[in-house]
């Protein structure tokens, strides 16, 4: 009986990244831009998407994949605003979406008639940062009710994201939230991060967001 050492030297995420490459290839074939919305629970991702669909639904074709640990409540909410497929992934306990789930979801989306794909990830600022879904960009959403230190507490997510949305700014007069500190914390973690201030509930800042999406969808 002998003990052997076998070299493996394989990244744990290698298979996921391979599948993310497949997602990217399929999106490229159909010239679809995919944006992965990540946030903690309750930051307002679904309200943001509802408002976005209401504003842009007549201009570009938007498809959505939602991920939730349980229920397809978000998908049901969004389906009221679009006749495009809103594909729900119930992860059954998993704290993130992975590339295989997105690849499967794409089978049920008419990519030929889609300009923009939103992936509404599971509400969690830790795990989704580590999983490449084949998206063009991660967009991190945080809100003024969560505290100014979110970027410092979850630096990997804010580093992985290309855009940060600070949501619920209509509530600022009612909160002890220091906007300057929040923005400084964001810049400290990721100086390149573009930050949009908006309120998905009142519509403030939505025009800038929608212009950004229109540019992304046509690029």
């Amino acid at each position, binding site marked *: 009986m*002998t003990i052997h050492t076998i070299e493996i030297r394989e990244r744990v995420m290698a298979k996921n990244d391979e599948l993310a490459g497949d997602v990217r290839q399929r999106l490229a074939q159909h010239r679809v831009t995919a944006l992965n919305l990540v946030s903690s629970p309750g930051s307002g991702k679904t309200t943001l998407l509802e408002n976005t669909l209401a504003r842009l639904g007549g201009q570009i074709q938007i498809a959505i994949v939602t991920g939730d640990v349980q229920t397809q409540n978000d998908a049901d909410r969004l389906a009221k605003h679009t006749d495009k497929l809103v594909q729900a992934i119930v992860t059954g306990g998993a704290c993130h979406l992975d590339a295989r789930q997105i690849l499967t979801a794409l089978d049920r989306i008419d990519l030929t008639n889609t300009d923009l794909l939103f992936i509404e990830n599971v509400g969690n600022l830790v795990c989704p940062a580590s999983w490449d879904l084949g998206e063009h960009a991660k967009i991190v959403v945080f809100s003024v009710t969560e505290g100014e230190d979110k970027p410092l507490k979850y630096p990997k997510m804010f580093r992985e994201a290309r855009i940060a949305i600070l949501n619920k700014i209509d509530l600022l007069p009612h909160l002890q939230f220091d906007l300057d500190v929040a923005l400084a914390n964001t810049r400290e973690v990721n100086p390149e991060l573009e930050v949009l201030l908006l309120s998905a509930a009142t519509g403030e800042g939505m025009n800038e967001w929608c212009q950004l999406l229109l540019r992304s969808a046509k690029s």
Partner: protein
Amino acid sequence: MHEMSIALEVGRILEDRIGLARLARVITVHLEVGAEAGVEFDSLQSSLDVVLTNTPFVQAKAEIQRVTGDALRVSHVEIIDDDPHY
């Protein structure tokens, strides 16, 4: 259970690389995990303990080496082999 997903993926990688039949002979699995890998070490260790002591594994334990950055990889395994020519 992000860490359990990772532990299961480690099992899949080992099955792919050394074959299902030999997993029962694995005694140690060495991993390199970065401080910024988005992984909670104790949780990963617990998840690996579950995966590596259940079928198709039997007696394997995980040795996690903490490294800098966001590395997350299976480094090497130690395996008991009866075949002296292996």
